[in-house]
């Protein structure tokens, strides 16, 4: 038999990324200075993002697709990788886990996310999801001499495995109903056979919602997030709060909007209470947190709730508002973590809210940047966070969900309290002790990029919005 080689062009970025991950893994054996490994990882990601420019079409018999939608998400992943590595270099040395595998795991995890964004078959999707998840499990426990980190990895792994089970259940029910795992074929089958309202299909959608909800940390599947976010290395917390979440939203968008397009009303009914609950749990529980990483974990749960509004609208404007939101969220959240990471130094954890007391006096620059990120996360103009929320709200109101938006804005006003509390600690209290800052060029670079992005997108969002809209043209 003759096996023709499949078209590798659409999958080229993933191939390159895997190659770089392997190179980094090998280099780690030879190179003593781990900073070099980091630089090569960044350079590799840059090359991969260039290769993204001329990939399009689908391959592997339609199991894999490179379109505007996946490209948009891959750009979020690349931003996530580069910023994470920038803030990691100094940090993992401080944590005394300066091993090269760290970078290669991050790259492997990103390959997983890229596959998820491009999966047009449920099996490919599962493959990507597991690759991403397994790498992040290891990364979460990377500080192996720290009990909390190990605990967080174990929790993440056990619960993650559980959610993978749900995903497989869901996939197998869908397969049983439709006889295919191809996302487009599922959609055709459902419309042709009139499966809308079929109970098994609803069960499958429910199962998939649980699995994806776990990845994006939506309530009530969010239980792992606070513990894992708190225990994991701070740089990895930043990585996890953006990458896997965006990848989760990418698959929700594709699977729900395409495969289950015929039963939009059904899954919207499932997602609406989840979205409300997510916003409620995230914002209300965050109010009482004293550990800043834990607080941002709940904040990240809350942000998943807002982004879900974009999916609930079930139209292209909503999806592009969700993409826009995640893009902005990547910058503002990693920016906030870049400040948090500076407070960690030899012998000082710097994770407690009280560590921020009087920061504006001891380190005015760091405090000012944190202020910008906190206001952006609240969604106050002229920061990017406002643009993200505005777009989502506009899409949702346009789709007739005004009441849902009213709930969302109320929760967003509640969230102001815990973000403001950080500002209050920094600006309105006097410093108790002079806290040293762990500064480095790369971390400064990450801060400069994120701050600039938050402010520029906040005032001139045109290009980003246009990009998010254009990305959906071939969807």
């Amino acid at each position, binding site marked *: 038999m003759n096996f023709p080689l499949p078209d590798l062009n659409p999958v080229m970025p993933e191939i390159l990324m895997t190659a770089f991950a392997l190179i980094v893994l090998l280099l780690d054996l030879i190179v003593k200075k781990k900073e070099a490994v980091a630089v090569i990882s960044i350079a590799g990601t840059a090359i991969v993002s260039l290769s993204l420019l001329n990939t399009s079409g689908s391959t592997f018999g339609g199991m894999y697709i490179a379109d505007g939608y996946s490209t948009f998400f891959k750009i979020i992943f690349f931003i996530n990788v580069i910023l994470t590595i920038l803030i990691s270099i100094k940090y993992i040395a401080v944590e005394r886990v300066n091993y090269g595998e760290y970078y290669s795991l991050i790259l492997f995890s990103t390959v997983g996310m890229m596959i998820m964004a491009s999966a047009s078959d449920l099996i490919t999707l599962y493959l990507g999801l597991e690759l991403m998840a397994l790498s992040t499990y290891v990364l979460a426990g990377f500080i192996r001499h720290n009990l909390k980190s190990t605990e967080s990895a174990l929790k993440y792994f056990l619960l993650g495995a559980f959610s993978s089970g749900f995903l497989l259940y869901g996939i197998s029910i869908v397969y049983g109903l439709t006889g295919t795992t191809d996302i487009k074929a599922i959609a055709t089958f459902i419309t042709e056979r009139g499966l809308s309202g079929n109970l098994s299909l609803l069960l499958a959608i429910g199962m998939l919602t649980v699995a994806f909800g776990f990845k994006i940390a939506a309530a009530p599947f969010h239980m792992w997030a606070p513990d894992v976010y708190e225990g994991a290395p701070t740089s990895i917390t930043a990585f996890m709060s953006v990458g896997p979440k965006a990848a989760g939203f990418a698959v929700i968008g594709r699977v729900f909007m395409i495969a289950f397009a015929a039963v939009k009303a059904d899954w919207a009914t499932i997602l609406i209470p989840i979205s409300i609950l997510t916003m409620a749990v995230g914002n209300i529980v965050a109010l009482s947190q004293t550990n800043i990483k834990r607080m941002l974990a709940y904040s990240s749960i809350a942000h998943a709730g807002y982004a879900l509004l974009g999916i609930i609208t079930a139209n292209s404007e909503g999806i592009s508002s969700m993409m826009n939101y995640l893009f902005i969220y990547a910058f503002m959240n990693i920016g906030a973590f870049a400040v948090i990471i500076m407070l960690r130094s030899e012998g000082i954890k710097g994770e407690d809210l009280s560590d921020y007391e009087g920061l504006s006096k001891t380190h005015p620059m760091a405090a000012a940047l944190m202020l910008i990120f906190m206001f952006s996360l609240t969604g*106050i103009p002229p920061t990017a966070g406002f643009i993200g929320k505005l777009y989502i709200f*506009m899409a949702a109101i346009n789709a007739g969900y005004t009441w849902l938006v009213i709930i969302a804005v109320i929760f967003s006003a509640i969230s*102001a*309290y815990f973000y403001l509390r950080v500002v209050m600690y920094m600006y309105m209290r006097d410093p108790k002790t002079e806290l040293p800052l762990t500064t480095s060029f790369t971390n400064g670079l990450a801060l400069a990029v994120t701050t600039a992005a938050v402010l520029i997108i906040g005032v001139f969002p045109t290009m980003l919005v246009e990009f998010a809209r254009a990305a959906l043209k071939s969807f």
Partner: protein
Amino acid sequence: MEQVIMNNLNYPILSTVIFLPVLGALLILINRRSWETLTKWIALGTSILTFIASIPLFTHFDKTTHKMQFVERFSWIPNWNIYYFLGVDGISVLFVLLSTLCAILCVLISWTAVTNKIKEFYIAILLTTSFMIGVFCSLDFFLFYLFWEAMLIPMFLIIGVWGGPNRIYAAIKFFLYTLVGSVLMLVGIIVLYLYSGKTFDILTMMTKNYPYTMQIWLFWAFFAAFAVKVPMWPVHTWLPDAHTEAPTAGSVILAAVLIKMGAYGFLRFSLPLLPEASKAMTPVMLTLSVIAIIYGAIICLGQTDLKRLIAYSSVSHMGFVTLGIFALNTQGVEGGILQMLNHGVVTGALFLSVGIVYERTHTRLIADYGGLATEMPIYSSFFMVFTLAAIGLPATNGFIGEFLILLGGFAANKWAGVLACTGIIIGAGYMLWLYQRVFFMEVNPKLHGLVDMNVRETIALLPMLILVFWIGVYPNSFLSFMHTSVQHLLERVNSGGIAQEAQIAKNIMEVIR
């Protein structure tokens, strides 16, 4: 564009006025932390320059038209149809001037009072000024909301960082109250945007008619934002805390300009965009206004803290403003706008005055004062004038404003007018009693040897003194700004919308033919 007159000056005056303070803030930002005097001079220089830059708005303003003037319009975010759209009419132009004047006074009064984080303080003051002017000039709802919300950030810091002992509580309360109101307004804005064919242009929005039920919903969404800012009873509770705890400059900004933005919002958005709903809600709004007038005044009688007393008197005075606005007749609305200016001048001046004496004694308790008139005679005379203006004595500005409002109030609803009058009587009571306790009676031994106002402080109060008499004696130089704009606004409200106007005009044209 038939609703606007393009800028007839050969430079973008409104942008200049808005962004000069930002420029000053940037200069301060790059200035060295230890050069504190330079920081202060930059702040003072910028605020004076901004004021000078805003003077052509006063001199070159065309009073014969209701159309927007000094307009600037550029496409900004084309995919959402958002424009950078600025312009002023008779309703907003005076507030721009009030804001720029207020900035100078705030810098002057903080010169020695603020000793901590000087750089940040002046940056915050300048940014607040810039955003406030932006609010009054925006003709694009998105731009308006941007300025409206952005202003919260520096104001939050001003109260929370440089305020009194209970400042953190006050700052957070201020922020959360205003934010909840604002986000509800945001929902309203988006609904309007989608309904009016995806435009944020306020003037285009005004040419459309909205269904009655939608108007009622939108009215309350806007009410949430504007009533909190005014503040109307019963959402006024942030104000006493914020006013009391804020540093002097913060109180002045709050009193003179910031709380005017709420009343301005009613005039600029609620009335013309939602005329039917505004008319239908008049009884509710009048009731709330009257409650605010009387309630604020009665609470004042029981205050022991100088700043808190003036803060509650603001609730009462702003009740007059909303009463005038929702009287929906010429006298009422013009009186309301004038009273907004008056209140800005008088209450701003009162807070400046309290700041002057607080810097010397570090107490705000009325009981700690007494006999100040012998110790600080010049100061006492100034304070006397502002007290009388707050009461509304003829020949001061307070009289004109309150008189017009009561005229309008009586015409709209007899009982509202009658009850509002009792507010004036109680007002005279608490202000005079305050003056008596602070300035007359036995000299409090702690106050011996207080120095009277210095030149800087006198300069800070003098413009307010001039304005008190200027408006009081010849109000027409200010009222003439608003006549045509108010007339046009009321025509729109009372005719129930432009569409009907257009219909009438069409009919007339047919008859003529």
